[in-house]
């Protein structure tokens, strides 16, 4: 697999933050490996990461004035230190959609360094994305959708939150 995952932002601060992201990536991968050796599948990790996302999403839900307002949601999602870590680009932000492209993934970079196969990396990425799925699940009228990902060999991760009509 030829991954397209080259950072453009390379200042000292963002490098320091990415180093911690890399440690997080190695932690989850190695915990899944060690659990597998002892007979567990990766569902334990999905549950764990989903809980993490639920906590973030619930806090965000409590913070916003109107949980159905995509514009307000967009003010909070992806606007912290993670913006630079993942080199986020807001593609669309309006009343019905928030579309963010990630142009760099420190997790994928770390998993490649650790020698994981493309299949493993795609699975690890999808498990980590359960955190974002959980955030979406905290908002009854917002649905999380994951498009292409860097882990699949594309140059971006397409993070999408769509307002549902129901």
């Amino acid at each position, binding site marked *: 697999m030829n991954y397209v995952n080259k950072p453009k932002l390379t200042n000292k601060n963002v490098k320091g933050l990415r180093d911690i992201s890399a*440690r997080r990536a190695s932690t989850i991968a190695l915990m899944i490996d060690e659990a597998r050796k002892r007979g567990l599948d990766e569902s334990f990790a999905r549950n*764990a990461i989903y809980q993490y996302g639920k906590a973030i999403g619930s806090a965000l839900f409590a913070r916003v004035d109107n949980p159905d307002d995509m514009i307000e949601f967009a003010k909070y999602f992806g606007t912290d230190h993670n913006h630079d870590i993942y080199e986020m680009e807001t593609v669309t932000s309006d009343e019905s959609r928030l579309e963010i492209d990630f142009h760099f993934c420190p997790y994928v970079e770390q998993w490649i360094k650790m020698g994981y196969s493309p299949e493993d990396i795609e699975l690890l990425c999808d498990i980590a994305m359960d955190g974002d799925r959980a955030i979406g699940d905290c908002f009854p009228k917002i649905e999380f959708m994951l498009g292409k990902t860097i882990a699949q060999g594309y140059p971006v991760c397409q993070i999408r939150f769509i307002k549902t009509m129901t």
Partner: protein
Amino acid sequence: MSNIINKSTNQEEIVLQVRKAIEHRATWMYLLMNEARKRGLDWDDFARSAIFQCGCIHGTRFQEDINDLSNLEEFSKTFVPEITKKVFEMEFLEVDKEKFYVDFHYCPLVNAWQKLDLSDDEIDHLCDIGMDGDRGIASQFPSFKFTLGHTIAQGYRSCQVRFNKIDIE
């Protein structure tokens, strides 16, 4: 009632951001371990093994930045980048070729675990497993011996991290 004292003084923006990222990792670590324990795995077995290996990976990477692998003064600069020193509010007590003694006066991992309302005993256990990362780093340097003294997670005001040079044949 918790006996853990873990108060930060440095509130620089970048320090707060790095602490937040470390808290994210500490929370993942606990949640992963907790879910694995619910399914019958023993923390001291599977999690120690995983965290130790994490340390080994990062220790191997540190080696690339160090010319003399038996020089603790050089090691200290790679082990503790400037930002890490601020994040953990580290106090360097002794740093030379033979010794690297550092006290941590604040721990963002403990802070993350406290936010999860874990007991002091559980936090102490998580801390010691987390320290397997440092043990893993140290394992990549045969000339160094890592010793952990008392810790914030045990209710002390600092974590005593000590590296000594040892003679190897």
